């Protein structure tokens, strides 16, 4: 066997590995998600939310209360392990002063309340959405999903899957840095 031919498998493999690396980097930045079903949210006004408050039966959670702020909507449920995993990071964000509106989706009320009691509550308010009322408006097809809405009420970013620091830095952080001086 000639010397150069013996290198062909290695080179082919390295090309393949390069492709995978490229794709993983894109996934890490949230630019690529093989499971995406297109929803035309980005750049459009956020759908309004009007849900019963999970923690207070007499109150309702309304998106109108957030007008003029940069805020997040996080769709979660106690049935979703990825939501458990991102919880800690949401707590971290909330301590940093990021306002997050939670939508507790397709869940048991008691379970959800327990969950927040035990693990802490990163949300300013939590809307309870057992019948997907808000989830349908927001085009949610899995949990967790996180949306960023700017001060004009326009949806700027969407992330499907657990929120990791890397995703935060790439997609979300810039909106908050820009806002800080005016705060």
């Amino acid at each position, binding site marked *: *066997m*000639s*010397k150069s*031919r*013996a*290198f062909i*498998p*290695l080179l082919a*493999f*390295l090309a*393949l*590995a390069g*492709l*995978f*690396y*490229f*794709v*993983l980097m*894109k*996934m*890490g930045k949230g630019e*690529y998600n*093989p*499971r995406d079903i297109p929803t035309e949210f980005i750049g459009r006004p956020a759908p309004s939310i009007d849900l019963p408050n999970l923690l207070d039966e007499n109150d309702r959670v309304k998106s109108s209360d957030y007008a003029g702020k940069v805020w997040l909507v996080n769709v979660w449920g106690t*049935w979703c*392990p*990825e939501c*458990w995993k991102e919880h800690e990071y949401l707590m971290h964000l909330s301590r940093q002063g990021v306002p997050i509106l939670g939508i507790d989706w*397709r869940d048991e009320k008691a379970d959800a309340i*327990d969950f927040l009691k*035990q693990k802490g509550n990163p949300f300013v308010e939590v809307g309870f959405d057992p019948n997907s009322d808000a989830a349908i408006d927001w085009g949610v*097809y*899995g*949990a*967790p999903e996180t949306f960023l809405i700017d001060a004009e009420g326009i949806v700027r970013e969407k992330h*499907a*899957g*657990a929120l*990791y620091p*890397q995703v935060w830095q790439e997609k979300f952080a810039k909106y908050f840095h820009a806002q800080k001086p005016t705060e």
Partner: protein
Amino acid sequence: MIPEIGHFALVLALVLALIQSFFPLVGAQKGIASWVAIAKPVARLQLVFTALSFAFLTWSFLQSDFSVLYVATNSNTSLPTLYKVSGVWGAHEGSLLFWALTLSVWTTAVTLFGRSIPPIMMARVLGILGLLSVGFLMFMLFTSNPFDRLMPPPMEGKDLNPLLQDPGLALHPPLLYMGYVGFAIPFAFAIAAMLGGRLDAAWARWSRPWTQVAWVSLTLGIALGSWWAYYELGWGGWWFWDPVENASFMPWLAGTALMHSLAVTEKRGAFKAWTVLLAIFAFSLSLLGMFLVRSGVLTSVHAFASDPARGMFILMFLVTVVGGSLALYAVRASKVRSYVRFDLVSKESALLLNNVILVVACAAVLLGTLYPLLLDALNLGKISVGPPYFNAVFIPLTAPLVVLMGIGAMARWKRDSLENLWPKVRVSLVASVVFGVLYPIVVMQRFDWLAAVGMVLAFWVLFTTLKATKDQARGRGLGGLSLSHWGMVFGHIGIAFFIVGITLTSVYSTEKDLRLEVGESYEMGGYAFTFNGSTHLQGPNYSGDRGEVVITQNGEQITVLHPEKRNYRSGMPMTEAGIDAGLTRDLFVALGEPLGTEGAWSLRLYHKPYVRWIWLGALIMSLGGLLSAADKRYRVRARRTVAEKSPVGATV
């Protein structure tokens, strides 16, 4: 405490794996006898700790210890014990632990059965297997620890998907994993042989039985998954060419090529470099499959499990293992020369062509699997490559392979000629054409070209295999044949059964979605399906509808099927098909939806001739693999060099 002990056992296993890889590998290179000698005991000790860790996780499942996150999300108290146990490998973290355990078990098996292997070689093999263990254990400990705690623990675990509660699905993943991990053994032997600079036939002999056992596991695992999909999912398909299936099929193809190539290397000393490359391929494709399905780059599998950190870890592992071994190959294999000469017409050539076709087919599957990823990643559009692509490529590629099987089984090693082969295959050829063409006409009662081609191929394999066996047995009787010859016979006849199954099912199946009123009938494949309406159904954790379909043939009642449509309390709907199974046909009925208020339903009716032969074929193939692996010459002390005059004929 139990989970912490399990975690700790895992850490110790990692430390042992590091020792198992470092000292023997360095010792073998530098000739330090004491470092070489520790390979076996350390490998066995590593098994002890990995097994302990696995046992503790199983214990946590059996005890329903929901303070362990993994248990809480994959089990609950009402689950039957069997499914608590299968829950251990039912999700990502636990299935990794199962991989690590399987690798450890295989490694220890090598230490026990490989007594004839020289200590230096053994040290290298165990060292490489140790490195792989290090990779898996680190992956688990750094990104996917199954012992992560959940504080405070919930009262009850997650409601398990009802589809999971099935013995077929409980066994399907472990068999696949055993196959994937099993290919680590020939891989380790190949690398060890390259490290030692002795790419002779010895490593091929040592790794053959392991390759065969791994191949059998993989075959059974794939077949079981296919069978489960068929009977449980309610829409009658058995192979879908989706990425996860392809991920298991590619190592199978490479493994099949490897088995054949090892036979040549062992018996004739030919294809040395090529066989090493195939050993690398088979295991690399197992790892690649793991990367593709676990990193989330490809599949549409259940949402949002993808964690780029995990994907990155596997990619790094992949690059280290595959890149490293291919680099070693590039350096070492160029120096290897196979001095063994063989003619264009010879068993070697037939097996070489078999290898080439299998590898090319595997590459075509890989391309089809990765093509959407490539385009999407480059923003060239989202596409899907569906079953039509794979069928259009795979079937024409493999048909010549089947023709070759018959010739290969018959051809002589080293030198043969068409004049010599022709009289041997003449009768088989004529007979298979006659039977193959007549079968659709006489038995299926409708001629179809595709069916005829498929049946000719199946009969061809059958007849040539029998003829080769008869020739081989001349003078010594059937009892004088080696087990490895019987392995070839069963392996090839299994393929023949499989071809019959896919051909006749694809060509003669009738499948119909239709609306049936209560009392209305539909005729299909000579059977009359009469829908007798549906009744409400109340199960322990579901409610639903149960239909009744009476099937008659020529006015005689064959069977009554009760397809069900269930709604589980967890909110999951599920279709339970009614199946009447038979050797030559399955009748299959599934409920769709109620239509209107008069009790009419949409129903799916299938008549599937010979569909069982698909899985029957896989079983027969697996039996062949086991027979081969049990051949007694693997148990006698291995010869160091290949005998110049090896017996003619017995392959694989």
